[in-house]
């Protein structure tokens, strides 16, 4: 029951905040939606961990208006993204393009993972080939050894 109340409140709140944000361009909700979709792809340069859709910085508001104006002019999404990249660099893109300078960014994590797995595999395989007396005796096993007749090999 309590969960339903929370979900309902959140749903209502979500509707409320959306209605508030859409208010200035209520004339054209389709355009506004397109603008917001593009805006979520672009980084706000003043508050660098927010998109210009999230940010309330003045520059973000200006850039949203710029996107809106370009859409009204009939520019395609790609044209707008290109316009922003030409001015602010690839840094404004939340999804950086795949090219020479970004290979490390894109493939670095995978390389690290493969390298780590490779190292793990090597170590495990070398260990499995070692004879048991190469390892230190398990201290937990000692009481049983003490009970038996034979002394643990040193």
């Amino acid at each position, binding site marked *: 029951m309590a969960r339903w109340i929370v979900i309902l409140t959140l749903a209502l709140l979500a509707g409320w905040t959306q209605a508030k944000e859409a208010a200035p361009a209520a004339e054209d909700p389709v355009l506004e939606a397109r603008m917001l979709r593009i805006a979520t792809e672009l980084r706000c340069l003043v508050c*660098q961990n927010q998109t210009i859709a999230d940010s309330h910085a003045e520059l973000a508001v200006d850039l949203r208006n710029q996107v809106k104006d370009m859409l009204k002019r009939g520019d395609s999404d790609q044209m707008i993204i290109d316009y922003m990249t030409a*001015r602010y660099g690839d*840094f404004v893109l939340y999804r950086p393009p795949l090219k020479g300078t970004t290979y490390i960014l894109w493939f670095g994590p995978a390389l690290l993972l493969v390298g780590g797995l490779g190292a793990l595999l090597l170590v495990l395989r070398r260990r499995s080939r070692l004879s048991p007396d190469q390892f230190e005796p398990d201290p937990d096993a000692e009481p049983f050894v003490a009970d038996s007749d034979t002394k643990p090999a040193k």
Partner: protein
Amino acid sequence: MKKLKFLLPLAIFLGLVAFLLVGLGLNPREVPSPLIGKPAPAFDLPRLDDPAQRVRREDLLGKVWMLNVWASWCAACRDEHPLLVEMAARKIVPIYGLDYKDTRAAGQQTLARFGDPYVASLFDADGRVGIDWGVYGVPETFIIDKAGVIRMKHIGPLTPDVILNKIEPLVRQLNG
């Protein structure tokens, strides 16, 4: 071999320290401008002191000039202002201002109070020209060559060091 194994974590640690040390020196706020080496974006703006007079990009072709983006509301601009006044007095390079997202009265008042280093200040009330130039924080300073190509951009307030070691040699080179 055994010794080497002991040293390995130390080596990794030192590597990390090196990366972090370099990272400390970097400023994530300074986004390298893709406009360097590209033609300066076109503009056609009224002067701050006289709305009837306009300044266009084409008017400034054929000379090396500096564009300083400023605003009356920008505190860091006030810090660099004396340096600009000094630069103007030494006639290093013609300085044009871009009064970014300001009101005419406040902009004019600032210049009247602190001195006017600008050949002309362009008045960009809505910040559109600023966006065209990739401005995201004020102050910013650009050096434009005779062909209208942006050769340098400095983000944040100018310092005596930047003027002496970057701007002056560059202007000399572009004029020479």
